């Protein structure tokens, strides 16, 4: 197995799917001639041509609206949003059109649409370009929300997303592109809507996904040195949300910390905690603890920005609080 970056893994998935199915095409800002803001589609334009790697104006509503139309006519668009923060410009198209069409019109049409969106903070891009609004999109039935935390999952989940008949928001964390990991070559598929145990343990369950998986794994290493074995469950998909591994783990550890990069209020941690209380109340030995971003618009200043984002130490102290 090759040890490649998440950028390469995503690129590989796109390339392989475009080779496999001529209906798959890419559209977005700077995806063609420039090769993608994050260099994910470098070389695609020359190989697949301008028809299948389409540069668009800076108009997110147009990108998603156009992609929806393409999907309705039978193509398989992979639309790229340079940042998920711009998804708000296309919010109506995403949650009010794409998420609803299939069910609202009696299943007359399917919408095999993938929206790749780059999210997350920590790169000094200012409050309006640094958000992690994953939970907002996961709120809407009809829209699948996927957010991988490892290169292998990024490849497997993206390939599954492109082959899916449903509209999918595929969230890539900007600071994970350089992360390396073993990625199976060729046709590697990870099913959407399946959480997984990323690290086995017995003392506490850490539930997390995306960038925070990396943070949580580091915290678990430090905790292990103190004799605390954390089990980490990586959600991978927020909708559909697979709670089975979470509940199974919780019934063993009786304590949980949910780590997300977005804000705490009405967030992923709230949802996970509520479901634990609903499904495993008699196994609760301590209140579920949420680790999340400080509730302010994220500052530009590097030191302040890092202070606001969840850190390894935050996870460690949350774990100790529930133990």
């Amino acid at each position, binding site marked *: 197995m090759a040890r490649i970056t998440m950028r390469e893994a995503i690129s590989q998935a796109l390339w392989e799917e475009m080779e496999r199915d001529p209906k798959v095409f890419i559209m977005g800002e700077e995806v063609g001639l420039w090769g993608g803001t994050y260099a994910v589609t470098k070389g695609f334009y020359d190989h697949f041509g301008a028809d299948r790697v389409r540069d668009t104006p800076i108009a997110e509503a147009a990108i998603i609206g156009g992609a929806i139309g393409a999907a309705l006519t039978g193509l398989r668009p992979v639309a790229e949003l340079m940042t998920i923060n711009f998804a708000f410009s296309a919010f109506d198209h995403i949650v009010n059109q794409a998420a609803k069409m299939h069910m609202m019109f009696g299943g007359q049409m399917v919408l095999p649409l993938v929206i790749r969106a780059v999210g997350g903070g920590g790169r000094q891009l200012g409050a309006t370009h640094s958000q992690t609004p994953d939970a907002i999109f996961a709120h809407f039935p009809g829209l699948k929300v996927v957010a991988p935390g490892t290169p292998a999952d990024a490849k497997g989940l993206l390939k599954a997303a492109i082959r899916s008949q449903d509209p999918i928001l595929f969230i890539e964390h900007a600071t994970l592109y350089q992360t390396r990991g073993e990625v199976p070559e060729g046709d590697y598929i990870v099913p959407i809507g399946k959480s997984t145990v990323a690290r086995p343990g017995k003392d506490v369950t850490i539930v997390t996904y995306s960038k925070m998986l990396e943070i949580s794994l580091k915290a678990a290493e430090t905790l292990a040195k103190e004799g605390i074995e954390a089990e980490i469950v990586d959600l991978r998909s927020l909708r559909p949300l697979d709670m089975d591994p979470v509940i199974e783990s919780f019934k063993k550890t009786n304590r949980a910390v949910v780590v997300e990069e977005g804000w705490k209020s009405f967030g992923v941690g709230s949802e996970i905690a509520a479901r634990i209380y609903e499904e495993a109340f008699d196994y609760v030995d*301590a209140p579920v603890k949420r680790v999340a971003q400080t509730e302010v618009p994220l500052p530009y200043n590097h030191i302040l920005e890092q202070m606001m984002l969840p850190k390894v130490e935050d996870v460690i102290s949350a774990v100790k609080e529930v133990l």
Partner: protein
Amino acid sequence: MAEIVAMPKLGFDMAEGTLVRWVIVEGGEVTKGAVLAEIETDKATVEVESSAGGILYRQLVAEGTIVPVGTPIAVIAAPGEEVKDMPETGVEPGSVTAAAEKKTPDEKTPAAESAGQKAEAPEVSTAQHGQVTPDGGVLRASPLARRIAQENNLNLNQVTGTGPAGRITRRDVEIALQRAPAAVTPAAAPLRPATAAATLPAPSGMPGAPIPADEHQPIEKLRSIIGRRMVESKQQVPHFYVTSAYDVAPLMEMRKQINLQLPEESKLSVNDFIIKAAALTLRQFPNINASLTDKEIVRHGHVNIGVAVALDSGLMTVVCKDADQKPLRLIGQEVREMAARARAGKVRPDDIEGSTFSISNLGMFDVEHFIAIINPPEAAILAVGSAQNVPVVIDGEVKVGMRMKATLSADHRITDGAEAARFMQALAGFIENPLRLML
């Protein structure tokens, strides 16, 4: 027409009780006799039944409130009825009580309440769902700790919490279970060998036989109540004792004859006869069917016999009301039913309230005789031993007779030796001539 339910008086010395838990929510339907709430007295936790059917219009006191006897605690109304004049509770305001007093009709409509909206102080809702500690606080324990404790029959009040805010966690329960294994699995008591073959205790003095370690048993609620009341009685009441031996051959014979006529489940016990005999005797000795208050001696009009019932967790006295008026079979049936409820932990207020005299019978344990501690504020208690075949002297000759010894413990502040002795003599008149119990 709205009906007021008041704090019941569960015994002559009961001045107040703690309303531990409301069973019916406001707006909830109640039938006459349905359990409205649970009340804790210094004797037991008992259920309060509704004296009327309808809707529980209002709970007048909050959970955890100490309520004087006779104070209104609830209003039962007809469905849709609007109750204008709410009774005053006059309960001392505390943090919990203050919340209850806020519930004036102006502030809340019955409709809102029936929808289960409870916007009062958090103490109220916490107490409703959580367990209550002996000092009235809310017991903090994790759901997991509660479940493990329940599965292992462990009283969480005895467990020290080490979790956040003193919460009892799984670890605390597990430590407590290790410390008190016998409380959990009585069968595993060290003195009883686990092997089925070993029905006899292990021989003493066997070299190398393991000696069981000390066990530390938490003091259960009922145990501590018994302890407190008995210390009070033994320290404050000047007891004196009078013992008599009764010829119970005719009584045993009559019981045999009667029981031949009765189905298995309603056969009479020796104690049923003693209850009736004592009750009839007490009718002649009002000074022994009495209680002492601060300023006077109350000679009770009713003769209500308290019967000590042994429970796994201690002892409880159920009360056979007006036992002098009741036929033996009714006494037998009532006591049997109340004892069963007491053993099942489902005792009703009525079962344990109002005794004027008590009987403790250890006859079934092959006891020659014993002396009992008075159950305050009663004037006396009768301790009954076993009916035994003993040598007796009749007309200068030693013969086999059937005798039963009984000892009266009496309060010297109320009565004296001579009266107590006359009581024991008069009791003989019934016990030794059991036909008189039927008249």
